[in-house]
């Protein structure tokens, strides 16, 4: 490979962007291991006691459990709906009015805080949905646009004559979808699942309205916690949350091959 000289201004901008992206992570990790009773950066001393504190707090652990439960359910439901919606839009796009595809992107245009509030006022209250169900409903809706968008993108480069070839060779259309279409859009599906999962796991605005007595998601619990305390526990929670995200992505990579997902 030929060595190319990089314009120093471009290089500087590149490094600045890198720093800008890395800084929050470095600061949060630093603050989490600080041996102080308040959030401090650069860390003073080194201690893992705030991690211990987090793991002992029942509210954190319970809300983490809720978060995972909601994220997994919402992602699964959004996948089921989004996959077929994206497939339908791509396959029969010519016979469907153009605006129809945009419907799935609408949740992106409504400010989440407004959406959360309206969902609470209309659906959740009138149907008397339990808190966890309400959270799953809300998160499914905010995950759906990412699901449809990302899967649609990978379907747009999918050659549907491959599907017809498989059918003409004697395979049932449902089996064709599972064994021919899915493997070829796998990368898009994985990317969509990861994106939706993270969106759900980190959501505050919608969850704020949908959480109720005794049931809360982790970000909301953190939000409530920092209103009362200012110790590094929240930083420790954030680090643990990042850890979980990384583990999930690693698992996805292991089982399905994320390398291809971000290709």
């Amino acid at each position, binding site marked *: 490979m030929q060595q190319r000289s990089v314009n120093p201004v471009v290089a500087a901008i590149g490094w600045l962007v890198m720093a800008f992206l890395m800084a929050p992570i470095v600061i949060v990790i630093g603050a989490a291991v600080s041996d102080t009773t308040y959030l401090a950066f650069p860390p003073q001393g080194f201690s893992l006691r705030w991690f211990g504190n987090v793991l002992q707090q029942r509210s954190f652990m319970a809300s983490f459990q809720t978060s995972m439960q909601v994220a997994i359910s919402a992602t699964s439901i959004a996948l089921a709906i989004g996959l077929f919606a994206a497939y339908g839009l791509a396959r029969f796009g010519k016979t469907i009015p153009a605006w129809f595809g945009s419907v799935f992107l609408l949740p992106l245009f409504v400010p989440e805080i407004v959406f959360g509030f309206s969902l609470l006022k209309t659906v959740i209250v009138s149907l008397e949905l339990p808190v966890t169900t309400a959270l799953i409903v809300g998160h499914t809706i905010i995950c759906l646009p990412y699901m449809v968008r990302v899967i649609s993108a990978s379907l747009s480069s999918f050659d549907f004559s*491959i599907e017809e070839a498989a*059918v*003409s060779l*004697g395979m049932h259309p449902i089996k064709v979808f599972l064994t021919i279409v899915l493997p070829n859009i796998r990368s898009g599906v994985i990317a969509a699942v990861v994106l939706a999962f993270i969106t759900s796991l980190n959501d505050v605005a919608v969850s704020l309205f949908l959480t109720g007595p005794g049931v809360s998601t982790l970000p909301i619990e953190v939000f409530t916690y920092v209103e009362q305390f200012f110790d590094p526990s929240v930083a420790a929670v954030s680090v643990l949350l990042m850890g979980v995200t990384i583990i999930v992505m690693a698992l996805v990579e292991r089982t399905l091959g994320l390398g291809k997902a971000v290709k």
Partner: protein
Amino acid sequence: MQSNAVSLNDIVAHYGNSQVLHGLNMSVADGELVSLLGSSGCGKTTTLRLLAGFIRPSSGSIALSGRDVTGLPPYRRGIGIVFQNYALFPHLTVAQNVGFGLKQRQVAEPERGKRVAAMLERVGLSSFADRYPSALSGGQRQRVALARALVIDPPLLMLDEPLSNLDAKLRVDMRSEIRELQRANKRTAIYVTHDQEEAFSISDRVAIMDAGRIVQLDAPETLFTRPVNAFVARFVGFENLVPMIVVERDGDRVICEAAGGVRTTLSLAATGPVGDRFVIGARPEGLAIGAPSNSTIPGTIGVRTYLGRTYQYRIDTPAGPLVANGPFSQPLQQGEAVGIGFLADQCCILPMENN
């Protein structure tokens, strides 16, 4: 109906609100290769997709080997299809691609592998069995597509513009290869193309399509010499179509009058009695340029084009402009007065059309 490999009866088909096939009838005999030839939008691809079962006709029926398949889903028709862009499975190897149809037919392993290997041998790709399609050239992909469609022993093989993505040299090689495979395997085949030369060189019969109908379905030689109407005539190169009326006849010698009152003597037995109207069609090489006489159409030489061995002239006549070829050795000058005669054995006679 007897054992036609394929028969399409009064097929009407729509895409949305627009009707694309208007009562199409066609039968293909066992072992025959029939091409569907026409410009884009003439309904040839629709016909193919109807046969495959990807779309359903609005009315009419489709039969394969005497069995009505109009309502049969595509995965139960067993037709081998070679797609325009090959449509190979990108996540499967060449051998897996070729074995795909056999696997669906529950052909078990030692047998399946044997048949795949034999077919790859046939198309000359034995050493590529473990490659993925992305590592193949266009011509190789084409062969895999062909092997994949043939290995299932389909009662009907359909090819949708299979050569349109290949370069000119490879196109000619592949088309004789396809023809050879089709003949050797005694396959009935339907071949869709917009390339006249390709269709004529490969087919037993060619169906010329226009606006959702088959205009003429005949052997290439018949199409080339005896088109049934002006559309087919123009399509196969009869550039000069001159409406005539018979004004006098004496056995095989007929005196005809064209527009502008010009008269010419033809030796055509095929024309009718005095008063009969017809259209005579001639290719540029089917006209003779000579000195003006009272048995030829008078004209003046217009634009001259050099075509290698001959010159092509545009000639203005009272009956309208004509295109004729003249020998390279005696170039004619613009404005020269000439007489145009029809070489009867190279001309075609068409019925008068009302439009």
